[in-house]
C-alpha cells in the first residue's frame, strides 16, 4: 500500500483578497499546464426560491449566457473557444456557478466575461421566451430517466418545509408561468459582488491576475441581497414512503436519510460510513461522478450486487450548507421484488448501527478517501471548483483540513453517526415499481407531472 505521505497534496498556496465592493477573490498559481481556469460563484441556488418561482435560479443561469451590454448576442459564440477554451455553468441547491478553462493568455478575456455576467446581462424578451422551452426540454429529458424522477419525488417527500424540497430545475407550472421580469429582478438581486466568489487557478502570476480582477470588477457597485429567512425543517417524526407506479422495465429503490451539513461534526463520520457501505467518492461534486468508486468490497455491494439482488448500488453524501440528504440508490435486478431488496438493505444498515465498523474497514475507508482527494485534484478546473464550492457553502479553508478531518474519524464516531442518522424515523423510502409498458394508456407528453405517474405518499408513521 502506498505511503500516505505521498498521497498528501502539496500545501495550498491560496491568495485571498476581498475588494471594497465585497467580491471575494481566491487565486492559486499552478504551473502544471499552460492553462488557466476561472470560476465565478454566487450564493444563490434553488433553496433561495419561493413558491411560484421554482427553477428561477437555473433559468437565470441559462440567461447569463445570452449576451451582455458589451458582448453582443452574436459575439457570445466563440468568445472563449477562440482560446481553445471551454465554458459552462451549473446551478444547484446552494449555488450558481460559471466557469471557463482556456489557455493562460485568455485570463483577461475570462475576467471580462465574468464581470459582464455579474452586471450587464441583456435578458432580451425573445431570448427569455425561447429559453423557456429549452429548460422544459431539459426537465422532460431528466424525467425520461426513472431514477432521476424517483430522486426528485423522494426529495420532495423527505422535506416538508425546507426549500431543499423542490427540484433545482423547477416545477413545470412555474416554468410555464414565469416571465422576463421575474428572471431579471432575481438576477439583479443576487448577482452582486458581495454575493460572489471569484476563483482563478492556473499558470498565471497572482499579482498580475489580481490587477486584472481589480480592473474588471472594482467598478461594480455592491448591492443589498435581501435574503429571506429559510424555514428550518422540523424534526421528522416517522418513516416516510412513496411509490411511483409507472410504465417501465426496471424497479428502483432509493433511501434518503436526513444528512448532516458540512459544518456538522457528524459530516466526516458519515463520509467514512458511506465509504464503508458503498465505496469512497471524495467530495468533488464536479469530478467525482466521472470516476466510479472502488466499491466491490463495500458492504452494500457485497450484500446486494454480489448476491444478485441489485445490478447497482450507490451512495450520495455531498457537502451542503444546510442539512440535506444521504441517499442510497439501488437498481433491482429483473425479478427481484423491491420488498426483498429493501429488507436486505435495511438489515445491513441495522447491522452497522448495532455493531459499528471494524478497524480494518475504517482504515480502508480513510485510505480510499485520501486517494480520492488526490485523484479529484487532477486538473486546475477541478481544483478551482473545490475552492469556490467550499467557499460558497462554508469556507474554502475546509479544504486545508479535509485530510485531517477524515483521518481523525474514529470507529466510535462512525457507529454513533450510524445510530443517529440511519434510524428509521430519519428516512424516506422511495420505490419505482414498473408496470408493463402499454398497460396504462398514452401519456400526454407534457412531462411526468402530466403523464401516467401515480405517486402514493403514505406519510409519516
Amino acid at each position, binding site marked *: *500500500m*502506498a*505511503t500516505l505521505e*505521498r498521497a498528501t497534496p502539496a500545501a495550498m498556496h491560496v491568495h485571498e483578497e476581498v475588494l471594497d465592493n465585497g467580491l471575494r477573490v481566491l487565486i492559486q498559481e499552478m504551473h*502544471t*499546464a*499552460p*492553462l488557466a481556469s476561472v470560476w465565478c460563484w454566487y450564493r444563490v441556488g434553488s433553496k433561495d426560491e419561493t413558491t411560484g418561482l421554482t427553477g428561477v435560479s437555473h433559468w437565470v443561469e441559462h440567461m447569463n449566457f445570452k449576451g451582455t451590454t458589451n458582448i453582443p448576442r452574436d459575439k457570445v*459564440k*466563440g468568445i472563449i*473557444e*477562440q482560446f*481553445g*477554451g*471551454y465554458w459552462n455553468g451549473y446551478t444547484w441547491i446552494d449555488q450558481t456557478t460559471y466557469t471557463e*478553462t482556456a489557455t493562460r493568455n485568455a485570463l483577461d478575456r475570462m475576467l471580462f466575461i465574468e464581470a459582464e455576467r455579474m452586471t450587464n446581462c441583456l435578458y432580451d424578451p425573445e431570448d427569455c421566451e*425561447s429559453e*423557456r422551452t*429549452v*429548460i422544459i*426540454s431539459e*426537465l422532460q*429529458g431528466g*424525467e*425520461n*430517466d426513472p431514477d432521476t424522477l424517483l430522486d426528485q419525488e423522494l426529495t420532495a417527500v423527505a422535506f416538508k418545509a425546507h426549500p431543499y424540497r423542490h427540484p433545482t430545475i423547477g416545477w413545470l407550472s412555474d416554468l410555464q408561468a414565469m416571465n422576463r421580469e421575474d428572471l431579471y429582478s432575481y438576477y439583479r438581486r443576487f448577482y452582486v459582488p458581495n454575493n460572489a466568489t471569484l476563483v482563478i487557478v492556473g499558470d498565471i502570476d497572482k499579482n498580475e491576475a489580481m490587477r486584472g480582477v481589480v480592473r474588471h470588477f472594482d467598478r461594480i457597485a455592491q448591492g443589498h441581497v435581501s435574503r429571506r429567512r429559510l424555514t428550518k425543517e422540523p424534526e421528522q417524526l416517522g418513516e416516510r414512503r412513496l411509490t411511483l407506479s*409507472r410504465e*417501465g*422495465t*426496471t424497479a428502483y429503490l432509493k433511501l434518503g436519510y436526513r444528512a448532516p451539513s458540512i459544518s456538522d461534526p457528524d459530516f466526516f463520520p458519515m463520509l467514512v460510513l458511506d465509504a464503508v457501505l458503498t465505496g469512497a467518492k471524495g467530495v468533488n461534486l464536479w469530478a467525482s461522478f466521472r*470516476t*466510479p468508486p*472502488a*466499491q*466491490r*468490497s463495500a458492504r452494500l455491494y457485497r450484500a446486494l*450486487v454480489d*448476491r*444478485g439482488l441489485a*445490478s*447497482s448500488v450507490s451512495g450520495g453524501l455531498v457537502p451542503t450548507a444546510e442539512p440535506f440528504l444521504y441517499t442510497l440508490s439501488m*437498481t433491482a*435486478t*429483473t425479478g427481484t421484488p423491491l420488498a426483498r431488496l429493501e429488507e436486505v438493505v435495511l438489515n445491513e444498515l441495522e447491522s452497522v448501527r448495532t455493531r459499528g465498523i471494524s478497524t480494518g474497514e475504517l482504515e*480502508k475507508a480513510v485510505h*480510499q478517501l*485520501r*486517494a*480520492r482527494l*488526490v*485523484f479529484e485534484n*487532477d486538473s486546475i478546473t477541478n481544483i478551482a471548483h473545490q475552492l469556490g464550492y467550499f467557499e460558497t457553502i462554508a469556507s474554502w479553508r475546509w479544504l486545508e483540513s479535509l485530510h485531517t478531518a477524515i483521518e481523525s474519524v474514529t470507529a466510535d464516531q462512525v457507529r454513533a453517526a450510524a445510530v443517529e442518522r440511519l434510524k428509521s424515523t430519519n428516512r424516506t423510502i422511495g420505490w419505482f415499481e414498473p408496470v408493463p*409498458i*402499454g398497460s*396504462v394508456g398514452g401519456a400526454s*407528453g407534457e*412531462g*411526468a407531472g402530466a*403523464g*401516467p405517474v401515480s405517486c402514493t405518499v403514505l406519510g409519516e408513521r
Partner: protein
Amino acid sequence: MTVAAHRGLSPVRTVLDNGAVVIAKQSQTTPAVTVHAAFHAGTVFDPPHLSGLAHFLSRTIDRGTATRSPETIADELDRRGVSLATSVNRHVLSLVCTCLVDDLEPILQILADIVMHPVFPENEITTRRAEIVTLIRQDDDNPAVVAMEGFLAELYGPSHGYGRRPRGTVDSVEVIDRDALQRFHTARFGPGSLSLVIVGDIEPVRAVEAARAAFGEWKAPSPGTVELPVTPPPLARRVRVVPMMNKAQADVAYGFTSIRRSDSDYYAFWLMNNILGQYSLGGRLGGSIRERQGMAYYAFSSLDANVIPGPLTIRAGVSPANVERAVASIDDELSRFAADGPTDAEMAESKQYLIGSMPRTLETNIGIAAFLQTEEFFGLGVDYDVRVPDLLTAITRDEVHEAARRTLRPAQATVVVAGPYTGDLR
C-alpha cells in the same frame, strides 16, 4: 525491443519481446498514475449468434483468476482506493484505473493476472448475467439508447458489427456461458493485442520495467482479424419511429456513414463536424435548434471515423410536438452546409478552437492516456500531438465543403425517433 521518443508529449513507446506495446508518459500534476490497458477485443468480434459476448467478458474478466478469488481482487483494489473500470467499444476492450504512484507495481501485477488468467466462475457468470439483463431492460426503456441503437441497426444492418446492440439481447445473453467466455478470451487476449499506457508521476523507465515484470512473460498467439463489410450508403431516406408513450421527451438520431479514420480526408471531416454540430454549444445545429428556436436542451453531431466508415450522427432531444420541426431544421442546416460549405470565419474559428484545446485535452493523466491509446490504435505515431496543428491548418474551405457535399445528404439520411411520438415523420 524498440524505443522511440519525440518532442511534445514525447511518450516512451516500447515493444516488449512478446509483442505487447507499452507507452509511458511522465506527468507531475498529482502523485498518481493512470493505467490504461486496451485489447483488440471489442464488440465487432462477437460471434453472430452470441451478440454481447465482448461486453459480457468485460463484466466478468475481473471476477476471479487462477490464484485470486473475486473477493481477493476486490479487496486488493479497494484498499488502495482503486476502481478498475472495464469498458468495451466496437474494436477495443479497455481496463482503466488510477492509483497512487507507490501502488503502481502491485496494481500492474493484479491487472496482468486478471487479463492473463481469468477463470470466469460459474456463480459470477450467473450473477453478472442477471445484471446485464437488467441493463438491457433499462436500455429498452431509455429513448436515447433506443434511438441510437435503432439508428445504427438501420444504418449497418442488425447483424453487422457496427449495427448490433453492444450488450446483446436478453436472448443472446441467456446462452452466453463459461465456455463461450473462455473461447473469446483465448482468441482475443494476448500480448500481441495489448497496448498498455501508463501516465503519471513516474519515470518512464520505471513504468516500462514494471510493465515488463507484469506482462513480459505472457505467451499467447496473436489474435486474428475479422471481416467487416463496408455498408454502401442508402439510396433513399429511411425513417423509423419507435413509440415510447411512457416517456416525456423524444430522442432523435439522424445521420450517415462517414469515412475511415485512415482516410486522408479525415481532417476535413473533423472540421466539418466541428462546424456543423460541435463548435461552442453544438455548432450550426445547436445554434438553430437550441439557441434560435428553443426546441431542445441538446442538439449536436458526432463523427466516428473508424476502422471502416463509422457513423456521423446528429442527436437532439425534443418535445414530441417539435419532432417534425426539429428534423426539418436538421435537413435545412445540412442542405445549406452541403450547398454553400463553411464560411471563412467558421474555418478559422474551428481550427483555432481545435488546435487551442489541445493543452486542455492533454491536461489530466486520464486524458493523456486516452489520447495515447487512440494514437496507438490508429497508428498515428507518438508525435501525433505535435502534428495536429499543421494537419488542421492545411485544410482548405473547399476540402470541408467537399466533405459536406459528399456526406450531408438529407435525401439519403437515416432517421430514428424514439419517444412519446407517433406522428408521420418523413
